[in-house]
């Protein structure tokens, strides 16, 4: 009878997730920011690089103009798409690479695990942004995929640590031993038996990594390593306009607020997912 009445499947999980206020609020905030970034370019009152008046004045739409006399509100609306897409890709790269490293280390165990994780620790010792700058500073013209690769790779050791920790608790379980005894291939044991049981902590980690990615990508833009110097980019906008912080604060604050809101949204989401996972394992 229990089989019939219990709430299960995707529908049940979504309902349970929305019952968790953090997750619901986080998801809502994130979606709003994504919506702004996606439809922004079409609803923006002015073009991305249209000069609408003198620099750092209250001309243009409600947020005034930036250092070139472009409309700040329009640039905020234009500048979200690239940063979000790049941050998402960074997260994806970091998660895939990190999870692979982590579960392989946990699964093989022994000295190989030791070796992988010590190398991982070395990589962890470098501050993420420093690693990124090192590479970006050595090329003339950074391409978007370079940012994705370098930020993604710099996430990987952090993700790997978590993935290994979660996987270690699973590789010792009897259902893994059972698959081994049947003679399942190692790849299948990893991907079909172990990985599906890690989704909740990995989703939470992905949310957290997305938050960091936004910060990193914005930071890289702020430091001037943007792929297109004249394009609107939330990080770059902070840098361009910081001189006039006291005269025309909105040119700096608007992109800062957008980044902040998005980071809060993804972070709440990550927190909600991990709480949901915690309550589930209790019951």
């Amino acid at each position, binding site marked *: 009878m229990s*089989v019939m009445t219990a709430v299960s499947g995707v529908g049940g999980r979504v309902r349970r997730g929305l019952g968790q206020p953090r997750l619901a609020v986080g998801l809502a905030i994130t979606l709003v920011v994504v919506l702004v970034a996606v439809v922004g370019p079409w609803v923006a009152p002015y073009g991305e690089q249209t000069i609408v008046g003198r620099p750092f004045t209250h001309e243009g739409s409600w947020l005034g103009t930036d250092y070139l006399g472009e409309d700040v509100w329009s640039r905020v609306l234009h500048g979200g798409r690239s940063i979000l897409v790049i941050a998402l890709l960074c997260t994806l790269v970091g998660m895939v690479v990190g999870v692979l490293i982590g579960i392989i280390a946990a699964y093989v165990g022994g000295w190989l695990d030791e070796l992988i994780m010590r190398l991982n620790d070395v990589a962890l010792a470098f501050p993420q942004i420093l690693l990124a700058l090192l590479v970006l500073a050595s090329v003339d013209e950074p391409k978007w995929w370079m940012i994705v690769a370098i930020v993604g790779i710099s996430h990987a050791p952090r993700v790997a640590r978590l993935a290994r920790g979660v996987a270690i608790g699973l590789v010792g379980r*009897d*259902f893994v*031993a059972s*698959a*081994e005894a*049947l003679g399942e291939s190692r790849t299948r044991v990893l991907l079909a038996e172990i990985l599906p049981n890690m989704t909740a902590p990995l989703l939470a980690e992905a949310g957290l990594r997305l938050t960091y990615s936004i910060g990193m990508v914005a930071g890289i833009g702020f430091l001037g390593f943007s792929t297109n110097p004249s394009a609107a980019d939330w990080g770059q906008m902070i840098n361009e306009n910081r001189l006039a912080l006291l005269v025309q604060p909105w040119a700096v604050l608007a992109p800062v607020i957008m980044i902040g809101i998005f980071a809060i949204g993804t972070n709440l989401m990550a927190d909600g997912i991990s709480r949901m996972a915690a309550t589930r394992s209790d019951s």
Partner: protein
Amino acid sequence: MTTTEPVEETTPAYGVSVEGLRVGLTARPGVDVVDDIDLLLSPGEVVGLVGESGSGKTTVGTAMLGYCRDGAIVENGKVLLGDRDILGLGTNEVRMVRGTEIAYMPQDPASALNPAIRIGRQIVELLELRGIGTAQERDERARAALVEVGLPDDDGFLRRYPHQLSGGQVQRVALAMAFLPRPNVLVLDEPTTGLDVTTQGMVLDSMNQLCRSHQVAALYVTHDLAVIANIADRVAVMYAGRIVEIGPREAIFTDPRHPYTRALLDAIPHLSQARALGGIPGNTPSPGSRPTGCRFRDRCAYAQDRCAEEPPRLIIGDAHVVRCVRAEELPPWDINVGRVPDADPERVREAVLKVDGLDVFYGRKQVVFDVGFEIARAECVALVGESGSGKTTISRCVGGLHKDWTGTIDFDGHPVGHGSRRRSAEDRKRIQYVFQNPYQSLNPRLTVEQIIRRPMELFGVAKGRAARDRVAELLDAVALRPAVARAKTHLLSGGERQRVAIARALAAEPDILVCDEITSALDVSVQGSIVALLEELRQSRGISMLFVTHNLALVRSIAARVQILNAGRIVESGLVARVLDSPQEDYTRTLLANSPRIDVVDR
């Protein structure tokens, strides 16, 4: 109270009585966890409270300390300690009563000790907390308490940390701590679960002695009727939140009147005879889905229409009360019903699996020494031993889960590889392993159908529609409903999960089933039904079995041959009836003597 002579203590004058206790759920008004519980514990008396998982026995045990787990609430009733009702006391008063007047010994005492504090310190702290005695007196009492439970009392021992003690020692330290403040009442919640029989025997003896000498009223909560048969004065049997039968030990074990008590007793294997074990049909109902009237009626072989009404409490004999309307009309119970002849020793044996000169290593440490045995077609061979005897290790070598061994394991005339990856698909298919803990051996992300299908696809037994049909067939063979196929395993009970694990093993059409303590995590009635299932499979499909267990009584009912292991070596082996009836080795005799049994209650 400051004397150091333990036996000269003042005698507690009163026990405890529980009257009309009802515990409900805060989230579901009207649903009870336990209901209408009346229980009287007199000083110096050990009362056994028996029930299977979900019966509410632990709820009763903790309610006696005025405690309910989160989400549960005492709705009615009293727990009278002398003339005080514990359930009516304030938080601070209850705290004073707990430990001093009512002590509790949890299921896992190891987790009740602080791992970072030396045990001497922890015992002394108990007295400090209550401001008893001077520093020197406290130290003396701590040492005396350790002596009472048969532990050393030298400084070296007092300075140890909990992790430096063995499982049995931890249990006895916990026991010493429970008795230290001289409680009137002691509630023990399965404190010996997970201990070896020898250690369990010693802990139970100390407990029994202390209760008698200090006139403590003890409630021993357990699922194990055999333990109760050895220590309790009176026995209360719980089912679905109610006490269905209560009476003196002799009455319960020789003249049980409630059909549930009888079914439980019938499900218990005996050392002295082989039995056709069976389970109780259906599952224990959870709170909220229990039937009205007699709560056992939907699973009861004797149920009638009038069982739908609230069953009366019939007083059968001296302090023997049964909550069954038919208690007086049931035919007399006989412990020998269900007895079957021991496995036939004269049968011609055709060995399928031969283990010879097996040495097993974990790293540099050797854990199994020169072990050899044979398993014949359609025969069940048992490996028996205490923890650390190497029984599971041997089974893991046979099952291909451990590779670090030397010697030979011959299967069907050819040696098998070390570890599953060095074995042919054919060997992997024909030797299947069933794990001890069904809560760990099934991937929680997969549905039952996916789990059972996988071996078929892997070994090319069946695929597509044929595979789906075979899943249905196998579910039927292990007595699960077809609807289970679509469920994930977290919705299933322990017994159901173990059936799924067995179905997965059968899906590969094996010749040998390696069963590693597969019933030890399950209730006795569920164990009975699983054993019946295995026996049926052995006979109908001619499957051979290597059955690993610590339960000698179970061996008698399931296996034809037995190997007794101690510290990695075979001590004694042979036909089950021979080994159990006339053991040749001292070790076997000790094991037999310490095994709790229900077939020796004075009758």
